[in-house]
């Protein structure tokens, strides 16, 4: 795609998608949309007319955000915001997927400030909720609990993302493209490839129980050994499920015989 920048319609559609996700206006399904960059990457791909490249880049971004969960609601980064900027930049500048990570990480950190600002704005709206609750005004509650917070989040995210995409993305793309191929890109490549370790280590922590680490090691070395066979992940997931089942069977039987 010989595109040098995003058209204003393209920037607007991506901005609205991000606002839908970050305002949480698609219900609990936004948990996955917000934590995982994949769907945002797909939307960017559709808007820019290059789903295949967008998905490949997004897959690399997904790896560094693997362990993202938000106990209590706040996260150190917003993967959806990061992806919405980094994927267009990478497509415009013709970056390698691992190089796109260098754009995604700082943008994701900025995104988390926007998200937390949303909490602050909602704090004013909750006074209205108190008033409507005391009046038993159900229509008012729908307005103050659903409609108004959504409008406020849109007012926050749509302009911010639009400006970032329409004015920011071409500038970042030009800058990164001018660095392309040099020593810096070897470094970015090494950092991007290694940062996937961070997300995976984080999930290992979240799932917990150090004694289960043996199953991680089992799978790791199995996959390293079988790499030449090109076995797909669905097959591995089935093998993993069988191993999990056997494990549960064994511990529950040993618990009964005790």
């Amino acid at each position: 795609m010989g595109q040098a920048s995003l058209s204003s319609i393209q920037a607007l559609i991506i901005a609205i998608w991000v606002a839908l996700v970050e305002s949480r206006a698609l219900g609990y399904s936004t948990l996955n949309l917000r934590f995982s960059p994949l769907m945002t990457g797909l939307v960017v791909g559709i808007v820019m007319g290059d789903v295949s490249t967008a998905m490949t880049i997004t897959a690399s971004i997904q790896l560094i955000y693997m362990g993202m969960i938000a106990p209590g609601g706040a996260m150190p980064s917003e993967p959806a915001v990061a992806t919405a900027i980094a994927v267009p930049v990478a497509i415009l500048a013709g970056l390698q997927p691992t190089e796109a990570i260098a754009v995604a990480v700082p943008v994701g950190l900025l995104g988390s400030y926007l998200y937390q600002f949303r909490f602050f704005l909602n704090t004013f709206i909750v006074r209205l909720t108190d008033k409507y609750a005391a009046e038993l005004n159900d229509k008012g509650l729908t307005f103050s609990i659903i409609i108004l917070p959504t409008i406020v989040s849109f007012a926050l995210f749509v302009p911010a993302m639009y400006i970032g995409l329409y004015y920011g993305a071409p500038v970042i793309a030009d800058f990164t493209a001018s660095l392309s191929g040099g020593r810096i890109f070897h470094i970015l490549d090494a950092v991007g490839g290694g940062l996937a370790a961070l997300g995976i280590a984080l999930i290992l922590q979240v799932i917990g129980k150090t004694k289960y680490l043996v199953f991680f090691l089992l799978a790791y070395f199995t996959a390293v050994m079988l790499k030449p066979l090109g076995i797909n992940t669905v097959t591995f997931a089935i093998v993993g499920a069988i191993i999990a089942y056997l494990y549960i069977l064994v511990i529950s039987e040993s618990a009964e015989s005790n």
Partner: protein
Amino acid sequence: MGNENNAKTSIDLTKAPEKITNKDLHRSWLRWWYANEIPHTYDRMIAPSFLWGITPILRKLYKDKDDLQEAYLRHTQFYNTQAVWGGGTILGITASLEEARARALAEGKEEEAVSADVINSTKVGLMGPLAGIGDAIDSGTVQYILIAIALPWAQGGSALGALFPWVAFVILTYMYGFYFTKLGYRLGRSAASEIIGGKNIRKIIDGLSVLGLFMMGILAASYVKVSSSLQWSISGKEFVLQDILDSVLPGLLPLATVLGVYFYFSKKGLKITQALVGLSLILGVLAAIGIL
């Protein structure tokens, strides 16, 4: 609370609570599921979503305006939990407690009624422990098992790589979240101990943890890319460090990187931003001086 001079002596049929049906529970679950984090604030967290979810049930239960208002206001107070394991279960439990309270109030047995304090302390007491399980299972395990399966599709450029994890996650969590809502309503407060201490749910959680760790091993082997570009020659013989490492143990560097970060988290807690910056610096410096 104990407003005794208000006690009614006869049963007023127009004030009797309506029956809560499966459909009511589903409607409240859907409303809670939808509102979830839309009105998130620092001071009340997602209390308004809980109120918006349970509103239709409160309407059916409390036919007295003062009782209804008291119930509405009770659910504007601080509340925060995970949507499915905490949210579904507590929604069901609260519905059953509110129903018991509404029935006692309608029969004029104010002293015997489930008190407002009990309802509040049940919600607040359960929201933390159940959220802990829910975050680890839904966000941390189920979601990433689905992503791990779909990631190669995404990497191959397929839209399915994005659609599969999202759609499957939404369908799964919606279904068992509603199951928890019904369980909470049916068992009342004992539903919580069923989920936290119950044998069968324990087994499912353990099984999911094993599968989750297994899938992370598969992912780490394919997608963590740490390799050395260092090479040197001694008296005309070429040495390539990566080849030597591969002959010792294939996949050593990626594994060492993952475990290094893992033990950093074990020691220092989940300091993600520090780990992100620290790991980037280490990798960047090693790449700059030609080791990686």
